[in-house]
């Protein structure tokens, strides 16, 4: 049994949180090579694990060698609302539309932790209205991607919903496409910022 935190209270918390530095601010200080030397699949994984106390910044070859300055990181994540549900569920929310399936997936199963969720505040900072069909609400903890094939909604606790999804394959294809789009935007933004 978990309790719901009405928005009013969380909005107040959020205003304190919005002023803080986000994961993205620290990510910018990383090498972005995803070389894997540190034993992580990417620099972002390394950062997340560091925040969880599970890795040492000196295991990065760039930081260790001094080629890049080791960043000072003090990061506290925004508040989390709901623990994620597990598995995939197929929901038909209205009996009058039996062919329209809404697919709900939790993409962060088991690793639920203070950092194991989508940080919409960071996302908002990164994307900042750059993608026209992407809307992010840091206050609600929800991102929404509109697409012709089916809308995708992403929730901070790891739930992803694909509406109007015709079938499972199509739904995952949509998620994959959405994630690639987002990732490309992150990298483009970092490149643009470091060129300045």
């Amino acid at each position, binding site marked *: 049994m978990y*309790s719901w935190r009405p928005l009013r209270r969380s909005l107040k918390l959020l205003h304190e949180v919005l002023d803080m530095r986000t994961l993205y601010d620290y990510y910018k200080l990383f090498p972005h090579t995803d070389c894997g030397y540190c034993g992580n699949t990417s620099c972002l994984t390394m950062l997340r694990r560091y925040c969880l106390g599970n890795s040492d910044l000196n295991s990065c070859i760039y930081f260790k060698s001094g080629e890049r300055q080791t960043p000072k990181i003090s990061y506290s994540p925004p508040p989390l609302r709901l623990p994620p549900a597990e598995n995939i569920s197929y929901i038909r929310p209205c009996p*009058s*539309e039996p062919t329209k399936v*809404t697919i709900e997936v939790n993409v962060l199963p088991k690793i639920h932790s203070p950092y194991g969720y989508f940080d919409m505040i960071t996302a908002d900072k990164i994307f900042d209205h750059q993608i026209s069909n992407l*809307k992010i609400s840091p206050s*609600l903890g929800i991102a929404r991607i509109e697409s012709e094939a089916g809308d995708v909604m992403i929730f901070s606790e790891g739930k992803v919903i694909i*509406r109007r999804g015709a079938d499972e394959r199509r739904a995952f294809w949509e998620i994959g496409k959405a994630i690639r789009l987002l990732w490309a935007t992150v990298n483009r933004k970092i490149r643009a910022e470091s060129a300045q």
Partner: protein
Amino acid sequence: MLDINNVRKDFPFLRSGRIYLDSTATSLTPEPVLRKVLEYYHEYRANVGRGIYNAAQAATFAYENARAEVAKLINAKPNEVIFVRNATEAINLIANGLKFQEGEKIVTTILEHHSNYIVWLRLKNAKKVGLSIVKSDKEGLLSPSDFISHIDRRTRLVAVTQTSNVLGVRPPVKDIVKLAHEEGSFVLVDGAQSVPHAKVDVKELDCDFLAFSGHKMCGPTGVGALYIKEDLQELVEPLCIGGGSIEDVGIEYYRLRSGPGKYEAGTPPIAEAIGMGAAAVYLMNVGMGNIEEHERKLTKRMLQGLANINGIVVYGPRDAEKRAGIVSFNLKGMNPHDVAVALDTASGVMVRSGHHCALPLHKHVLNAPNGTVRASVYLYNNNEDVDVFLETLEEISKTLA
């Protein structure tokens, strides 16, 4: 006045802090009702109308007492109330029990829930019974004069809802009954959304049949009631027959009994019916007038708040006096299901999205083929529920739409 804090304490579902705004779909159940259901299982778990031992008598007494309480709620006589599964079954019972003949006519409206609509379409297709649909205006409002051209000498039944489950509008049932009776037609009132929320008096309405569900009036699921005017029970045939519904059976014949028992073949939902009786008592104790007034205040607050949020389109009349505590709306640029999921995930606000089992209304009156979002209030909702709903919706409108 309704003491909202005391009422809220009775509903265990609310303890987690969730905000339930979907009482139109089904209502929450208060402790006194749950206790009464459990009392049956704990103390006199026996079949009804059969058995001489004490527990069987206690069960029969509780079951019949529940019937009397439900009857009191709508000002009927106990033997005019038949326990069924839900409003849908009650409507089907009338559709089959009146034994319609080719050439007869049924009149219904575009506002109806599928449960009071497709049953008539089926009769039309199977038995060549005429079907006439009364159209409302854009806000869902109907006036008695809209019915005049539809009801004629051929009309055997007018089936109309007392409160629309989408728009909350309330057709003028009393006037419709008068018109129908002048032409010799019966009237079936779908009271699924009216009986739980306002004083309904079958004597005053003078309707012939009234259908409603227990689960929408703070009772358990699996039980509903059908009111059949006493002198019409001869005419209406039961949907099912069997044990419990007979007076005498021989090798080659059977004779059905009269009264509600005629329609209650087999073992009825005993615990549920007892619970529905307890729900009727609970509602009468709070006072139907108080419930209605409380809901009107909340609805007014909701309508005012919605008017101030960008991109919100409210369906039905803007005036809270013209509707029950049911408000359907859309947020421009967002599918109703997305709005509902966002409300739930962000603030634990539960609302319904989709067509609410009223496709003809969505397609032909509201012009909302993708459906609508529907928020509805009941006696246990308070101002804070409405405010959190409105604030979250405003945030959704600002950031996601």
